[in-house]
Structures are given as C-alpha cells and as structure tokens.
C-alpha cells in the first residue's frame, strides 16, 4: 500500500537533507524548548519562531501545502485548549503585532500566543522529520545514550503504525464492498467494534511476523544505519546561524 508518510520527503536531496542528523536534532530540540519557554503573552515573538523552520522547509524543498495540511490536522487539539483562555481571562489589553495594534482581552492574547507557539513547534518538528531519515534519528538517539528501550519503542512505533493503517484500510475496504445500505445505529456500532477488534488482532499477528523477520536478520535491539555521520563545515554554519537566531529570540523574549 502507498502511504502518505509524514517523512516521505526525508529521502530527497537538498542542502538541508545533507546536514548532519545530530546537528538538526539538537537545533530542533533547543528551538522547541525555546518556543515552549517564551512568555505566555507574546504572540508577535511566537510568530517570529515560524521563520527559522520555514526557511529550512523552503531550502529543503518541502511543499508548504503538505506541511500546512499536517499542521491543520493537529490544530483542532490545541485550539480547544487555546480557546478556553478566552473565557478565563477577559482583562482588557492592547495587542501589539509589529506596526499594528488593537484592543482585546488577555484571553485572546494567550490564545494567539498558544496557537502560534504550537504552529512554531510543529513547523520545527516537521522540518526535522521531512529532512532527516527516521533511521538516522534513531541512530542519533542511540549515540546520545537515550535509553535503549525508548529507541526500540520509537523504531517499532514507526514501523507498526503503518501496519495498523494498512490493516484498517483493508478492513474498511472489505466492509465497504459488502455494504449495500446503512444498518440501524446499534448494529453499525456493533460491526464497528468488531472491525476495530479484528484490525488490532490482525495487526498484532503481522507485527509478530515483522519482528520474526527482523530477528531472523540478526536484530537484537540495536538500530543501525548504512549512513555515516560526519560534522562538515556546512553543519557548523547551520549551527552557528541557528544559535544566532535562537539567541536573538531569547533576547527579544527577555525584553517582555
């Protein structure tokens, strides 16, 4: 089956793809921490955090439409949280955004900041995933002595999520082929529950086979990648620019 993998662009070739996975992961982690730590009422600053990942996505030749689609998929979850701020904090304030300003409430300010921070983090993570192979990321985590069990879990999750999607798709197809009319809700629910159960059982079975195939080829819990890691001048340049960018954001954040 052909999946619309979130990392389907990770196999492209671009200056960003060629950067060392360690440099990209370190910068992404620091940038994400910075975004989380930004002042709670700083929507303009949160919007500035979009710039860095956006440049990486453009240089990495990742279609912005693809990125936007994934962010929109996840956005409702954070919007539910962000919109609740509107009810809790109705203190009047003036919102400044670059040369613009308007009157609103602190709740709106918080809502905007939270949403902008979320989009900023999503952009940073998407830029990382779309320009770095997952097996390379696992290798980096291993080299950084992240607990082995966590690295194995991540590796299996990456593989089995697609097994689950495949099974769900096949089961849905089989159901659609034999659906001639809509049944009473209670019956539909019963069938739905049976389908979910069947998908999980089948996925478990397939996962067992995949594990066997991996073990048969010598997998003992250590992930290996055929790619070699070398910090090159381009990686130093990337890290220097990222440090300047993060430093500037920190400086701006300290002025709040």
């Amino acid at each position, binding site marked *: *089956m052909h999946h619309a*993998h979130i990392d389907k662009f990770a*196999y492209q070739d671009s200056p960003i793809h060629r950067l060392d996975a360690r440099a990209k992961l370190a910068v992404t982690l620091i940038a994400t921490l910075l975004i989380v730590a930004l002042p709670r009422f700083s929507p303009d600053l949160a919007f500035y955090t979009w710039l860095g990942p956006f440049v990486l996505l453009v240089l990495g030749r990742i279609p912005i439409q693809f990125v936007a689609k994934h962010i929109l998929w996840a956005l409702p979850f954070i919007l539910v949280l962000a919109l609740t701020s509107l009810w809790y904090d109705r203190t009047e304030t003036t919102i400044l955004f670059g040369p613009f300003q308007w009157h609103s409430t602190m709740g709106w300010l918080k809502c905007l900041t939270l949403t902008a921070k979320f989009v900023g983090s999503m952009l940073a993570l998407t830029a990382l995933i779309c320009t770095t192979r997952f*097996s390379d990321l696992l290798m980096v985590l291993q080299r950084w002595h992240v607990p082995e069990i966590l690295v194995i879990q991540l590796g299996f999750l990456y593989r089995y999520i697609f097994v689950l999607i495949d099974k769900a798709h096949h089961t849905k197809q089989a159901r659609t082929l034999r659906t001639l009319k809509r049944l009473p809700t209670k019956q539909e629910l019963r069938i739905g529950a049976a389908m979910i159960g069947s998908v999980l059982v089948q996925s478990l079975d397939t996962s067992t*086979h995949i594990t*066997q195939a*991996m073990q048969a080829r*010598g997998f003992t819990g250590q992930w290996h*990648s055929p790619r070699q890691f070398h910090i090159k001048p381009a990686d130093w340049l990337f890290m220097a620019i990222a440090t300047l960018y993060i430093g500037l954001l920190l400086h701006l954040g300290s002025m709040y």
Partner: protein
Amino acid sequence: MTAIDIKDFSFHYPDGTPALNRVSLSIEPGEKVLLIGPNGAGKSSLLLAMAGFAQGTGSVVVEGLKVTKKNLKAIRQVLGCCLENPDDQLFMPTLFEDIAFGPLNMGLSQAEIEQRVTQALTTVGLADKAHKPPHHLSAGQKRAAAIATVLSMAPRIITLDEPDGSLDPRRRIELQTLLKSLTQTLVIATCNMNFAYALADRVILVDHGQIVADGTAQTIMTDRALMETHGLELPAL
C-alpha cells in the same frame, strides 16, 4: 557436517493445537528440499522451528549448533529465512536499507555492506530499484526483494515459505531459475506441485504435523494414491 538435523521435534500452538508431532529429518549441505503438503499440514511450523521461532520438545540442530536461545545469533548468520508474506519481510523505507539491514546487524564494514547489497540486488534482478520504497514494488519484485534480504547475509542455508504465492507464471519461472541458480542449501515449503517438481532434489510430504513420505520428486510426486490421500495433485509433467 549435516546442514539441518531434527530429532523427535514436537510443537504445539499456544492454544494447544498440535502443529508438529515427533518430526525427525536430516538435510545435507547443498540439497534443495521441498516441503509439500496441504494447508495447515505443519510446513511453515517446521521452517519456523529451523529458524528458532517455534520452541517445542525434541531437538533441532543447524550446522552443529543446537537451536537454543544462546545459539540463535550464530544460527541466524548461517540460516536465513524468508517468511510467507514478503510485506512482513520488507520493513525499511528503501530497498537498499532493507537489504542492508542484515549485514548491518552482522557488523560488517560499510564497503562490504554496499558490495553485498549490490550483489544481492543484481542476483535477483532489482539493481535499478535500490532506492525505491519496497511497498512500491510489484508482487514478483517484492518476492525477489525478500530473497535478496536473505542473500545479502550470505547464509549457507535458506528457508522459504511459499515463495511462489501470488506470482504470475512468468515471475514463477523467473523465481524457479533464481532458486535453481543458488548454491545454498534450500528448504522450501509450497503447495504448488509444478513449482516443487521443477526445483526439488528431494521432496518431503508433511501432513497432520508428521512426515508422511521422504524421497525424490520422481518417487513421491508421481505416486497418485499417496498424493491424493493427502489432498495434493500430481504435477503436470
């Protein structure tokens, strides 16, 4: 040294259903052995037992190494197994990485890994597909790729479970040619009698978890009474 030696091996599924019942057999290096039998006869369980995935009573010895947890790592460098469904066998994002998976786990050097991957891909005729995602290959190509994942580890014994499944006649003939060209010891489970007859040095008929007959393809597969008793057809000679 005997390639595979199985003595009095019995295995039950977790729900208690017997899969293999006191199976004994011995396979010599370089033999091409075809396991034939109806569905549910125990062929796949027998292959899994050889690879150490079916723990039962009795003994399974691969090139002098008893199949125990301690020896599994060494055994898996000697015996490569191809599962029934190639989609289970191909789990990495690109064909190159999938075929390099085994050699990487063996701790080979980068140069040797690349050489082995290239050689395995060339052997199965997929050299131009190295950087394709495996799930974008056709059924025949996936089957060939699954075999390449094992060939890259250069095992001396290869087990294949229903390798001809869902292949069109042309791909089946290509696979037959490929398997005939391999010098390794091959143990292949199949329900396709023509495929088995074309390949086999030796045929083992399995039914109800037991070995019913063991001999040359000529002796066993032309015995109408024997074949029909076990729900099998005669090959089209």
